[in-house]
Structure formats: structure tokens, C-alpha cells
């Protein structure tokens, strides 16, 4: 059977796995849980592959291919089907999600081997896959929104997986609430869209948009509202604060949700809605600005972090910034491209970091590491590859995508020098702190007690995914290779039908200067520069960083404390909120009004009961008399009616 007509299978498989593990997993052995979880995801992956195979053979006029399964809700003009669609963009996301997801499932079996609530973890993970696929496949904004919120839920559950640890539970809450703020905007955006287009179905929206132009103001509002949602979900300024804390969750979770898939949902959404955005220049500009600033800003924070995962978290934030920058300057395909490569290398980075932490028995502070190069070679090499990729060293995946983005920022239709500058600086800092991470972790002398911490390479189940991802981090970007020798980017060409309206096709140039231009581009330069600086500071003169910190203490402390953003938020938002909640909502509204009503009614009931219970005399004759009274009353009534009716 053509699986395209049964896309729901893609959703059903992980959901089934989640249900089985969640309901019965408690009594299963680890093997069973593993086979169920991985099996479901692997099957989903295979189904996705098959779907893509069939998709590729589809004639162009049947794209996007929409499958409507049942009418979900109908209220007057408001009509929502449960419909799934697949087009080029979906294909990319589908492959990324299912494949990386599968790898991370496998990895988790090794990483979580010694954890309690094993089945719970995998049930959540499968559930996440389900929602993520819903998000990606949804053919209308409502279905997409379900996935959108669902992944948020799973992220909450998984961040707080060790809910006995207060920090983890708090982090979960923080993530949920912060994203909720963004989602509020997103929801309003949905309402506005429906109000404008009388539909929430992607194709319908785009068609009607193409047919009769909508006033730019409305579009801008819509786009900015949607973008707030993206800001929340994809951790952009000013709502990025939840992502670093989300590192409380298990590392595979960080890899899957907070690097590879969920956080990129915002980017996906913006790309999906590109017809709207591209008609709203101001919104585009906002997106671009937010993206660029985030990219730069969080990169700077990354410099001073000591927790290995925190560094990666901030780098994720900044990479997401790059993606939005791409979208903002109209290079959606570049954004998605970066999304994909980022999924590979950032996932790899996290997994490798996880492997390091695994090796160090849960130690996350880079200052207590060092010299692990020999002890855990596989982890080291794979992580190095990922770092080269993210730093944008030519030949690695990250190079192509980041280059495409910056080029778009520089020469694209919406080119803007300042944004470009921010991007480039960000790239420099990125490569610097990434290599700082590498050097601190793997080079130099061990800064931990060798005898106490028996460092060991991770099991096969963890290393294999690392290697696979490393492979992808190298070759995952070579779709763009032909561009260097003057061709067009395969990736861009593939995605052209989706973004065609938005993007101008790249003008062909002659091979030689294309190659030259590519190799002499700024990204390469800054990438190498960052590498050198890091090398100098942390290999040649390990004492220098401290001196630097001393010399520019205020800046350092500012950065080290992440610009005190959490504190500021706490002071500006959380404290007032707490105060109002405590003194008004709690003591006045809840205790005074609500409890008053409840207790009052209870008291009333008791009073009346005390009176009425006298009727319950236990004396049959009294009861009989009451019945009799009722009977007489009724007959009187009936006969009265009868009389008036007849005579």
C-alpha cells in the first residue's frame, strides 16, 4: 500500500510504543522496553523513508500531498480536519526527526541504563516523537499547534525527569511557563489568521493570500505574533532563559529536544509560514534582528560558561539565532539547511558531552576535566569533528550552512550589513568557545583525581550513534558542494517549490571565482581565527585566561552571570507576580472569596441539615404520613387540573 495515503501510521507507531511502555512498561524487562521504544521509532523511520521514496516519485502538481483522515471539529464557519500533509520541507524535517530521534533512542539505552523510571523515560521519548511528527506533518495550524504544545509537554516531562531534584523540577516549570508566554502570542496569531483567512489550513491560507492581497499591517501583526511563539519555543531573546536551565534533564533529552528537534520547531514554523512572512518586510526585519542579536549575544555568554552542557546550550541558542537570521533575510532554505546540519552536529556535541559526563561519572564542570583525549578517543574524535563543523571549518557540514546564511545576509535580497557583522562576530566567538570547550575537556593535564574517577569509554550503544552522527556532520552538508564550483545548491533546489515564492534563485557564477569566493569568505576566516585564539589561550598560555578575567573583571562577571538576565526577570516580573499572587489572589481572592463561599455553603448545608434531619425520625408511621400528605396533595392537584380541563 502506498504509505502516503496512510501518513497517520508515522504518528501511530511512536504513540503505540509510548502507550505500551507507559501503561505496562513497569513490569517489562529493560530489553522489552528497549525493543518496544526503539522498534517503534525505527519502524517510524523506515516508514518515513518509504514515504519519502514514494514522495519523490510524485508529479509536481500533486505536491504538497495532503491526507485528510476525519473531521475534527466544526463550529459554524470554523472547520478543522485532522489532516496531514507532506512536501519538501516536511520531508527534510521528517528525515531529521526520525533519524536523529532513532539514534538518540539507541544512545539512551546505554546512557540511561542505570537510571530508575527507565520505562517512563522511553515512554516520554516516544511520546515526544509522536508530537514532533504531528507538528511536522500537520496540514493545518491546529494540528500543528497540537504537536507544538505536545512537544512542550514532553520537554517539560523530560526536563523534570528527575523530579526529585528540585532544580530539575523548577527547570521543567520554567521551560513550560516561559514557552507558554510565547505560545500566548502564537495562539492570538492563530485567531487573527482565522479572522483574516476564514481558515487555518495551510494550503487554503496560501491560496487565498495569493488570490487577494491582505493589508500589510494585518500580515505584519500576524507574523510578529507567530514569531513570538517561535521566540518562546526556539529560545530567542528575550525568552531564551529556559533553555540553559533545561540542561537539568538527561543529556539525550538535551540532545534530542533542546538541540536537534523541538527548539527548531520555531524555525520550521516560520519557514512553513514563509508566504506570509515574505509579504511582511517589517516582520522579516524583526525576525532577522532578533535572530542576529541572539546569535551574537548568547555566543558571548558561551565564552564564560564552565558547565559543559551550559556552553552547548548557549551555543544552541545562538545557532538558532542564525537560523532565524536566515529566515529573516529571506534565505529560508539556508535556515532549514542550517537546521539540518545543526541537528547533526549539535546532537552529536550533546551526545558526546553526555558520553564525557558518563565517563566522568556525572561531572559536568569543565574545570575539573582535561586530558581526556587518550582515555575516551571515540568521544574525543567525534566531538572534535562536531566542533569543526560548528566552527564552520570548510568541508564540514556546518560550514556550508553557515556560509549560506551569512552570504544571504551579505548579498541576499534583504541584505543588511549590521546583521551580517553581528553574524560574523558571532561565528568568531562560536568557534572560540567551542574550541575552548574542546581544549579544556580533552587537552592539558587531568584536573581531577585519576584514582577516584575511573574514566571509561562509553558502551557500544552510545558510541555507534556518535560515529554515525560524526559521519553526517562531515558529509551532511555536501548537498551544497556544487555551489562552490558554480552550480546551484541541491538542497536549495529541492526546497525551491516551498520557498520559490520567497527566494530569488541564486545567479550562476563561474566555477573558479565561486570557489575562491567560497574559500576566502569571512566565515572561514573567523572560524580559523577563533580556533587560533582558543589554541593560544588554552594550550600555549593556560594562565592567561585568568589574567584576562582579572584585568576586565566587571565584563567577565557580567558575562559569567549571563548578564544577570535571570535576576532582572526575577526582579521585574517574578517578584511582582509573586507579590500580587500572595497578597491579592491568595489572601484576598482565594481565602476570602472562594473559601468563604465554599465554607459558607457547607455551613449552610449543615445548619439546614440539622433542622431537616428531624424528619428522619425513624418512625414508620411518620414516614407513611408524609407519603400520605404527598399523595393527597398530588391527587388534589391532578383532579383540580382534570376538573378545569374537563368542565
Amino acid at each position, binding site marked *: 500500500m502506498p504509505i502516503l495515503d496512510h501518513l497517520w501510521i508515522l504518528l501511530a507507531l511512536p504513540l503505540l510504543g509510548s502507550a505500551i511502555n507507559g501503561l505496562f512498561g513497569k513490569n517489562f524487562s529493560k530489553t522489552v522496553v528497549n525493543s518496544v521504544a526503539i522498534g517503534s521509532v525505527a519502524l517510524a523511520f523506515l516508514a518515513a523513508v518509504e514515504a519519502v521514496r514514494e514522495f519523490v516519485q510524485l508529479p509536481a502538481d500533486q505536491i504538497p500531498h495532503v491526507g485528510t483522515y476525519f473531521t475534527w471539529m466544526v463550529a459554524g464557519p470554523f472547520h478543522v480536519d485532522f489532516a496531514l500533509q507532506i512536501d519538501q520541507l516536511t520531508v527534510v524535517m521528517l528525515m531529521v526527526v526520525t533519524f536523529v530521534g532513532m539514534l538518540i533512542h539507541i544512545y539512551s539505552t546505554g546512557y540511561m541504563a542505570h537510571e530508575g523510571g527507565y520505562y517512563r523515560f522511553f515512554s516520554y521519548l516516544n511520546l515526544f516523537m509522536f508530537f514532533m511528527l504531528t507538528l511536522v506533518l500537520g496540514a493545518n495550524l491546529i494540528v500543528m499547534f497540537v504537536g507544538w504544545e505536545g512537544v512542550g509537554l514532553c520537554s517539560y516531562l523530560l526536563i523534570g525527569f528527575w523530579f526529585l531534584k528540585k532544580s530539575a523540577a523548577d527547570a521543567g516549570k520554567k521551560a513550560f511557563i516561559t514557552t507558554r508566554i510565547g505560545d500566548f502570542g502564537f495562539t492570538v496569531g492563530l485567531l487573527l489568521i482565522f479572522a483574516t483567512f476564514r481558515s487555518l489550513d495551510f494550503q487554503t491560507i496560501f491560496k487565498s493570500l495569493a488570490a487577494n492581497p491582505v493589508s500589510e499591517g494585518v500580515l505584519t501583526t500576524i507574523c510578529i505574533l507567530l514569531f513570538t511563539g517561535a521566540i518562546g519555543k526556539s529560545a530567542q531573546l528575550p525568552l531564551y532563559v529556559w533553555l540553559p536551565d533545561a540542561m537539568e534533564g538527561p543529556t539525550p533529552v538535551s540532545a534530542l529536544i533542546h538541540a536537534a528537534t523541538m527548539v527548531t520547531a520555531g524555525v520550521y514554523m516560520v519557514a512553513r509560514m514563509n508566504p506570509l512572512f515574505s509579504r511582511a518586510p517589517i516582520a522579516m526585519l524583526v525576525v532577522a534582528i532578533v535572530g542576529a542579536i541572539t546569535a551574537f549575544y548568547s555566543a558571548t555568554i558561551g565564552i564564560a560558561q564552565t558547565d559543559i552542557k551550559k556552553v552547548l546550550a548557549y551555543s544552541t541558542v545562538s545557532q538558532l539565532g542564525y537560523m532565524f537570521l536566515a529566515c529573516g533575510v529571506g534565505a529560508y532554505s539556508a535556515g532549514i539547511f542550517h537546521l539540518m546540519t545543526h541537528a547533526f552536529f549539535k546532537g552529536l556535541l550533546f551526545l558526546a558531552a553526555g558520553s564525557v559526563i558518563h565517563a566522568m561519572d556525572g561531572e559536568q564542570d569543565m574545570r575539573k576535566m582535561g586530558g581526556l583525549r587518550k582515555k575516551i578517543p571515540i568521544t574525543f574524535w567525534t566531538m572534535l569533528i562536531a566542533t569543526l563543523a560548528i566552527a564552520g571549518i570548510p568541508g564540514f557540514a556546518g560550514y556550508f550552512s553557515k556560509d549560506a546564511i551569512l552570504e544571504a545576509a551579505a548579498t541576499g535580497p534583504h541584505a543588511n550589513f549590521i546583521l551580517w557583522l553581528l553574524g560574523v562576530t558571532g561565528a568568531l566567538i562560536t568557534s572560540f568557545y567551542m574550541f575552548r570547550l574542546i581544549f579544556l575537556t580533552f587537552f592539558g593535564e587531568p584536573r581531577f583525581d585519576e584514582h577516584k574517577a575511573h574514566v571509561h569509554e562509553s558502551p557500544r550503544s552510545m558510541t555507534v550513534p556518535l560515529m554515525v552522527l560524526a559521519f553526517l556532520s562531515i558529509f551532511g552538508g555536501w548537498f551544497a558542494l556544487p555551489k562552490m564550483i558554480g552550480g546551484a545548491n541541491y538542497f536549495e533546489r529541492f526546497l525551491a517549490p516551498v520557498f520559490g515564492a520567497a527566494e530569488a534563485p541564486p545567479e550562476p557564477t563561474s566555477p573558479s571565482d565561486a570557489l575562491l569566493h567560497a574559500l576566502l569568505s569571512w566565515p572561514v576566516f573567523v572560524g580559523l581565527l577563533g580556533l587560533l585564539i582558543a589554541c593560544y589561550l588554552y594550550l600555549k598560555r593556560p594562565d592567561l585566561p585568568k589574567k584576562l578575567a582579572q584585568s576586565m573583571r566587571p565584563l567577565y562577571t557580567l558575562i559569567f552571570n549571563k548578564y544577570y538576565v535571570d535576576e532582572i526577570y526575577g526582579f521585574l516580573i517574578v517578584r511582582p507576580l509573586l507579590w500580587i499572587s500572595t497578597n491579592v489572589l491568595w489572601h484576598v481572592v482565594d481565602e476570602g472569596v472562594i473559601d468563604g463561599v465554599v465554607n459558607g455553603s457547607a455551613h449552610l448545608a449543615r445548619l439546614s441539615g440539622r433542622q431537616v434531619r428531624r424528619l428522619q425520625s425513624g*418512625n414508620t408511621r411518620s414516614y*407513611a404520613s408524609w407519603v400520605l400528605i404527598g399523595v393527597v396533595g398530588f391527587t388534589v392537584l391532578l*383532579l383540580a387540573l382534570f376538573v378545569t380541563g374537563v368542565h
Partner: protein
Amino acid sequence: MSLPVILFFLCGALAVAGAILLIAAREPIHSALALILVMVALAVLYLLLGAPFVAAVQIIVYAGAIMVLFVFVIMLLNMGVEERTDFSQIAKYFGIPLGGVLIVWAAYWLLHSRPAAAIGTGSGMEASSTRGLSTLLFRQYLFPFEATSILILIAILGALVLARKEE
């Protein structure tokens, strides 16, 4: 004043008297006897109404079995006369008067409401009524009939369970 009319008033009076006696008597046995009197009187009325079979059943089952059961139980327990306590004010001041009201007023209503449909002695339709009754009972009302048999069975079981001595 033809025979049936005389009989009607006679038996009606007997029935009412029996009912009043049932209330007045303090000795349960006397109440039971009064009730039997009522039943017999009613049986005669059924005869008047041309339903001899029902009359017979009334006597056999009601007077002959059910009331015997009552008498039997009264004798078995032999708890003496009933004590006229008045713990229930509501019954004293509302129940009984209301009952009186109900009687008078319902009787009045029934006497005056419908056009007085005449009823003869019903002689001559006895056999036919019995035959028709049986056909009705075993054809149209077969299911309820069987249901009642089940009901009886259940009642027997219930009585047995209740009466059984726990050892």
C-alpha cells in the same frame, strides 16, 4: 330494590365494617378476622360483578392462604395486644385526618364524576368469563404470568433464607 342491589349494600356495609374493625381491634387476630370478613364480602361482590372465578381465587388464595399465613404467624409469635403509643405526632395530627379527607373526598368524587354506568348481576357470563380469562392469561399475558411464577420462586427462596436458623 332487587336482590343484587340489596346484596351490594349488604356486602359493602360488611366490608366497610370489617375495615373499620381492622383499625379498631387491638388484638391482631381480631384484625385478621376483620380483614377476612372484608375479603369474603369482596368475594361476594365479585360474584355480583360476574367474576365468580376471581371470587373463588380471592377466597382460596387471599382468605385461604395468605390470611392463614398471617394468622399462623400471629399465633406463632403470640406477642399479645398492640400497644397504642403515640411517638409520631405527624401521624396523629396529619396522617389520620388526611386519610379521612382522602376517603370522603375520593368517594364523593368517584360518585359524582363519571356518568353512572349500570352494571347487572352478570349472570350468564360466568363460564365464558372463566374461559376467556384463561385464554387471556395464557395467550396475551403469558409472559407476565411466567414472570410472576419466577417472582413466587424468588419469594419462596427469600422466605427460606430469612427463616433458616444460622448454626
